């Protein structure tokens, strides 16, 4: 069964450094998402992406964050200058359509900012 994959599984970085989290969505899906989950808290929406542009973003997704689909398979989340409070599990998800269809999540990347 097709699945969303994410790399790396765990990323440790120093505060102020840039990180890029990578995702390979399910191949025939058209909508892509990033969510994050701070330890012990709810899963929070960051951004959705369709047709090579951001379709929706949350207040969390400020100028330090950016997303890109550099080729036909990868979907990336970049954090330009990481802060301690960016430490969280970051989940990528994809869906076939946007009309309230099932979103399939990847296994996550645990980001630790020191």
């Amino acid at each position, binding site marked *: 069964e097709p699945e969303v994959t994410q790399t790396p599984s765990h990323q440790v970085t120093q505060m102020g450094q840039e990180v890029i989290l990578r995702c390979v969505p399910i191949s025939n899906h058209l909508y892509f998402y990033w969510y994050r989950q701070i330890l012990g808290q709810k*899963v929070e929406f960051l951004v959705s992406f369709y047709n090579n542009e951001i379709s929706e973003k949350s207040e969390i997704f400020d100028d330090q964050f950016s997303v890109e689909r550099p080729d036909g398979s990868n979907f990336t989340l970049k954090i330009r200058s990481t802060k301690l409070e960016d430490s969280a599990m970051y*989940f990528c998800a994809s*869906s076939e359509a946007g009309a*309230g269809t099932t979103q*399939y*999540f990847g296994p*996550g990347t645990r980001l630790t900012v020191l």
Partner: protein
Amino acid sequence: SQQGEEDPQALSIQEGENATMNCSYKTSINNLQWYRQNSGRGLVHLILIRSNEREKHSGRLRVTLDTSKKSSSLLITASRAADTASYFCATDAWGLTGGGNKLTFGTGTQLKVEL
């Protein structure tokens, strides 16, 4: 209070028993989905129920949706130790005023099934 509150926060049962988890939400929705998360792992999709549906089954799972009460329940029958996980409801407001397809997650119920 926030969109998507599950109760109970934690539930401990014996293997073979049924587990019921509830989710309440505040605003109108298009769909409600249930996900499972094993400790420190990714989110596994369990079931999606649309706002015009009242009940849905998948294997040992039964989900109900009451839009008049803005609530949903997830029933796991004949639970197994492998069902031990956190369970989350997530709503979207696709097609509704101001709604997109982002998911708004609840706080989750931690289920522990003991042998």
